[in-house]
């Protein structure tokens, strides 16, 4: 294992966690993913060891010859080199998917040094190019992913059909192979119970809402991931534009709800936020669900200027560092659920403690 790998797992902070992106009071990050396959090889799920290995070799060979310098320095790792903890750290940082970590054959990941670009090899498709940026920056993330796609395309023979577009393992991704998603923090819409009708409306127009860790995960801590469902029949720009428009409306709704909460029940809101800050600052045990909820309260407090001296970056980092694999790494040993609650509380306490005394 190269030294550089440890840089990716020792620090929880990724580029997308810098809370300085546009609309970062509501939008945590924007992500673009494009799915691509090589024409010649059997797709990863159906491929045997030899077939997936050939695809992996061709992709890695191409990536060595290609010029990615415009996008930063890159490192690649095969999943076989990593132990379970290391894989899960990458999952918790959103750099790889649970599927790549748990069930890929000859899987690999190519990471940019600032972690904004992550290219998964032999996940469900041969290539999954992902770009993740802080705040609402869908277009920029698409530009970046599109450019990387172009560089790969200059060297690799993609599976593409003139009529139905890029051919993917799952027919739900055929066409553009594009998944555009934004991670949003919507505490006020949850408190004011508007969230369900908003999600219902989003489903009607072909958008999907999930918990922060993607498919099948609960929406802990009022953080949701909104993405396009349909990948065929529209251009990438149109799809991104639609999502962008909807997210902008949600941002406005959330801001309005926050203002209303402040005016109509400012005292109890301040109390709620301050109590959560107190608990996070002093608790010696906390489970993941409570931590997520209290962190959401404090994040809202920072955005509303009720809590000062703690940055949004710290909140983003804690979101990742309070996940099981990061806690285990912090503790340096295997933990049971109760131990995890103890270490989780410790990590949060230390992050929130005033540094000046």
């Amino acid at each position, binding site marked *: 294992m190269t030294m550089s790998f440890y840089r990716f797992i020792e620090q929880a902070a990724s580029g997308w966690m810098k809370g300085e992106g546009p609309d970062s009071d509501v939008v945590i990050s924007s992500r673009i993913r494009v799915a691509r*396959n090589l*024409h010649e*090889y*059997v*797709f990863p*799920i*159906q*491929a045997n060891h030899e077939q997936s290995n050939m695809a992996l070799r061709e992709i890695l060979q191409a990536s060595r010859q290609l010029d990615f310098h415009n996008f930063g320095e890159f490192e690649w790792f095969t999943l076989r080199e990593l132990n379970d903890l290391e894989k899960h750290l990458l999952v918790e940082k959103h750099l790889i998917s649970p599927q790549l970590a748990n069930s890929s054959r000859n899987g690999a990941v190519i990471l940019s040094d600032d972690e904004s670009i992550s290219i998964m090899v032999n996940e469900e498709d041969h290539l999954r190019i992902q770009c993740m940026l802080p705040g609402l920056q869908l277009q920029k993330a698409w530009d970046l992913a*599109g450019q990387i*796609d*172009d560089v790969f*395309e*200059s060297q690799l*023979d*993609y*599976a*593409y*059909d*003139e*009529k*139905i*577009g*890029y*051919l*993917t*393992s*799952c*027919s*739900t991704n*055929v*066409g*553009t192979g*594009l998944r555009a998603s934004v991670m949003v923090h919507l505490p006020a819409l949850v408190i004011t119970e508007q969230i369900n009708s908003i999600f219902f409306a989003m489903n009607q127009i072909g958008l999907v809402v999930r918990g922060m860790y993607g498919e099948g995960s609960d929406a802990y801590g009022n953080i949701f991931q909104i993405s396009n469902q*349909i*990948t*065929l*029949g*529209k*251009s*990438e720009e149109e799809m991104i534009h639609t999502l962008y428009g909807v997210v902008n409306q949600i941002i406005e709704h959330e801001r309005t709800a926050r203002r209303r909460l402040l005016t109509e029940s400012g005292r109890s809101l301040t109390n709620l936020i301050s109590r959560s800050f107190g608990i996070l600052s002093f608790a010696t045990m906390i489970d993941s669900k409570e931590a997520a909820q209290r962190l959401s309260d404090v994040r809202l407090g920072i955005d509303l200027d009720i809590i000062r001296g703690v940055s949004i970056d710290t909140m983003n980092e804690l979101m990742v560092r309070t996940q099981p694999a990061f806690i285990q790494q912090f503790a340096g040993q295997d933990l049971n659920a109760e131990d995890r609650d103890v270490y989780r509380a410790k990590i949060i306490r230390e992050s929130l403690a005033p540094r000046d005394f």
Partner: protein
Amino acid sequence: MLCQLCGNHPASASFIKIVNGELKEFHICEQCAKKQEENIKGISNKVLNEQLLSNVLEGEPSDSPIMEKELVRDTRCPKCGLTYSQFAKTGRAGCVECYIQFADSLPTLLLRNHGTATHHGKVPKRKKTLIRDKQQLERLKKELQSLIEEEKYEQAAIIRDQIQELEKRVAGQ
């Protein structure tokens, strides 16, 4: 919705069968789904052995297992080995060849997932070059023809060389 086969239990699975060459979807209960799955397994093996099953039955599903009476075309992708029934069940292709082998059912599947079956997005640059090269080739061939007709052989030779060059490139792509 109640199971469309037995009508006794709530439907929890969907089942696709071919009626007159068209894919039709039925909603069925878990018990009936299990029965169908067993039948499909039996029949797929039979298809592989006999290559063809000419046991056609049309019309509405009855309470007897439909697969027994029906024509099943369980083709297998020659490249990756995925069967049509696996493809129809999961909506997942195993390779590029699957998209050709199972092309008949593709519009239905894509319409269900996306509401359309035509791509309007990005085109890989190399494919763009290929399409442009092919068009250029057509133009040059026409030009060559008229140059020969006009007996301008020197110019025709230049065009001929250009055509050969372009043909090599297209073949390479």
